[in-house]
């Protein structure tokens, strides 16, 4: 008598021929070297995204969009719904950890030059997902319709409105009018639960297929070593089990954060009240926000804020298309210049985030 799981496997195999997939996974190996640790952050990002999807769906069961209902529904979730407080707290914490994990994943890929040929598309889809993750953060921040979220959205959309030529229409589109109102809330809700997840799922699918198809990138110089000296580990089950182990650790951290530091709701937004002192965006926007504060109002003949936004836009564009202009890495040659740019970016982001946090 075969065990139950074996019978179940056979039943599925008989219908969809799992043999090919199992063989593929069985032959898939992950390079083992001193930078192997960074491979796991892609998996951690994926795990946190899955948590976001699950907790997001659970929150949707009770959340009500609208100026008069949003805040009260979150209050209801946190005080009346069984474990509602936990789901909301996990959703909020996991959102932040997701951005952090994605950020680490992005920089690890950048510094190991894993974006080089033939993985340009994997990098670009990853970058697009990162921008979408920031969009998730921005749109989700307003949903509780509390004071901080209201004014942070006002400031954020104001900055978008400063863009040359397209700024005003973009701002009106984001707000659903001239001001942040219930229309903005409905819009952000739509982006957060329908538009962004839809696009994200497609990009994630492409990203994962590409990773599986092309395998893990090996560091520069690794390819030159003799095959006998190259260390690898089977993707299944070794790497997957290690991934699982890290996921458990992340889950533990998440649970501790969600319970010990429950995400506060604050006060309901009042569009007629004055903005609270020291209003700041979420930490992952802080370095840009702080930079804009330091740029003079007028630089030569250009508006300081516009200049800042344009520069960040250009930097983001260059960063996204790094596989296409870093030809040396694609040729398997060392490129110190991109390393220096990356180090500068890391130091800049950390420094300005700290300054923004303290100011």
């Amino acid at each position, binding site marked *: 008598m075969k065990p139950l799981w074996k019978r179940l496997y056979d039943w599925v195999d008989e219908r969809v021929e799992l043999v090919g997939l199992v063989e593929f996974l069985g032959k898939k190996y992950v390079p083992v070297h001193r930078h192997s640790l960074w491979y796991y952050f892609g998996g951690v990002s994926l795990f946190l995204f899955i948590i976001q999807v699950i907790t997001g769906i659970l929150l949707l069961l009770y959340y009500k969009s609208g100026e008069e209902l949003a805040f009260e529904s979150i209050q209801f979730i946190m005080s009346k719904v069984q474990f509602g407080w936990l789901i909301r707290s996990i959703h909020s914490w996991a959102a932040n950890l997701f951005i952090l994990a994605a950020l680490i994943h992005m920089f690890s890929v950048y510094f190991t030059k894993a974006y080089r040929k033939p993985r340009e598309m994997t990098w670009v889809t990853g970058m697009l997902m990162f921008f979408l993750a920031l969009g998730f953060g921005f749109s989700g921040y307003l949903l509780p319709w509390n004071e901080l979220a209201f004014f942070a959205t006002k400031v954020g959309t104001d900055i978008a409105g400063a863009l040359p030529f397209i700024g005003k229409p973009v701002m009106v589109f984001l707000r659903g009018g001239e001001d942040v109102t219930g229309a903005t809330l409905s819009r952000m809700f739509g982006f957060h639960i329908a538009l962004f997840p839809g696009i994200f799922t497609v990009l994630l699918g492409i990203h994962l297929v590409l990773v599986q198809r092309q395998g893990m990138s090996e560091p520069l110089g690794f390819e030159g070593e003799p095959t006998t000296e190259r260390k690898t580990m089977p993707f299944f089950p070794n790497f997957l*089990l290690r991934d699982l182990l890290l996921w458990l650790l992340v889950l533990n951290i998440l649970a501790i954060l969600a319970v010990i530091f429950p995400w506060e709701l604050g006060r309901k937004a009042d569009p007629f009240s004055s903005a609270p002192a020291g209003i700041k965006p979420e930490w992952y926007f802080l370095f840009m926000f702080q930079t804009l504060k330091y740029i003079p109002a007028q630089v030569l003949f250009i508006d300081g804020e516009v200049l800042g936004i344009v520069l960040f836009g250009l930097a983001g564009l260059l960063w996204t298309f790094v596989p296409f202009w870093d030809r040396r890495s694609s040729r398997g040659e060392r490129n110190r210049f991109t390393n220096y740019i990356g180090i500068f970016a890391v130091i800049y982001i950390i420094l300005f985030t700290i300054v923004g946090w303290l100011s």
Partner: protein
Amino acid sequence: MAFVKQRPIHIILWIISISVAAHGTLALAQDQCRACHEAIGDTPSTLFKRDIHLGKGISCADCHGGDARKEEMEEAMSKSAGFTGVPKGDEISTLCARCHADAAIMVKKYRSTLSLEQAELLSTSVHGKLSITGKERIAQCTTCHGSHGIVGKDNPASPVYPPNVVKTCAKCHANAAFVRTYNPSLPVDQLDKYRTSVHGMRNAKGDAKVAECASCHGSHDIRSAKDVKSAVYDINVPATCSTCHSSANYMKGYKIPVDQFEKYSKGVHGIALLQKHDLAAPACNDCHGNHGATPPGVQSISKICGSCHALNADLFSKSPHKRAFDQKNLPECETCHGYHDIVVATDKLLGVSSEAVCSWCHGGAPTSKAHLVAKNMRHLIDSLRSSESAATLLVDEAERKGMEIGEARFKLRDARQARLESRTMVHSFDEQQFQQIVDKGLKVASEVSEEANNAIEEYYFRRQGLGIATLIITVLAVSLYVFIRRLERRQRTKQ
């Protein structure tokens, strides 16, 4: 012989006096303006005879221009001689200011102590705004002081002599047709009300010390009562009244206390108005009236307090205390709360302790009904206060622990509201009605406490849950780690 007996100094003074008189006669004789106009007998020249300016040697030509030495009218009143005729509109005040704002003329020449800023102040005052014609300011110097018969303000003939001021102001301010062209909502019965006030009655008898319009509103610098710089702006009223009423010297002879402002400033109303700038708090005029200012009588005190504290006054009127107070001729609110130095009404006023006002009348027999009612009411309000405090502490604690307890916090307002209502209900002196309100508050406080307690219990439940979950996850992680180690060891052995 008497002349012979004069001392030399007296003779010198006599000679000087004769010379001065002769000089004056000469000067007057040379003023051809007056010579002609007095001969005609017109009003300006007749009035000018008693004008203060004439006494200072100021002639018609000093204001109207022309050459007062010429006998011929055409020559004296010619443009070439600088004749300007009758000044009109703002020219009047400008003309007055030519001397009255000039220190060289006023101080050095005439040794005057008058302010040099009168014209400037007038132009920035409410009367300095443009008139409906748009060509001139509403009031000129002559509007109040007159033109050719101007005398000092201490002269009973002056329109600005204190007992005359009210009539001077009323010329315009009691004219409904005139006032409505500027401000239809401005009352025109100030003079009528004033005449019913203590100030007005004394003023009518010629008392120049009592307050008239200018005493409170100012003279040249009058501003709208809504202007924060106005002496009669709500917050400034107590200080304005106190300029006279706090001066023991000034008030000597009126036989009224002079400590009202001092007491008021320390009272609940004074603190609210003067320190917190709460414009809803009453100033002197809110209780005493402004133009009809008079001390409220015993019978009307509750009506005056009741104009703001309506519920308290209404409940008191229906209570058994009303009749008792009337019989003993006691002022209603004032008996328990005082008047100028009204302190914050705390729960201590209630009950039979030494601080409680009830004990003043009902402190004697501990078995009397009134004594027992007062005692029980105090007990009830004390228990409501302590229940509310306990509930607040629990809600605070739950919030400190990061629990979402906004609804309970909101409900806590109902407990506070019930306590405030019970304080109002005290004025009914009806134990049953009072208890109903207190019970309502106690019920809310108890519900809030329960919700807060549940939240605090939930907090500890969450911590325990976290402990268990962390333990399970850790065990799983360790097991997985061990499993991976074994698996990889097996794989290495196979190789």
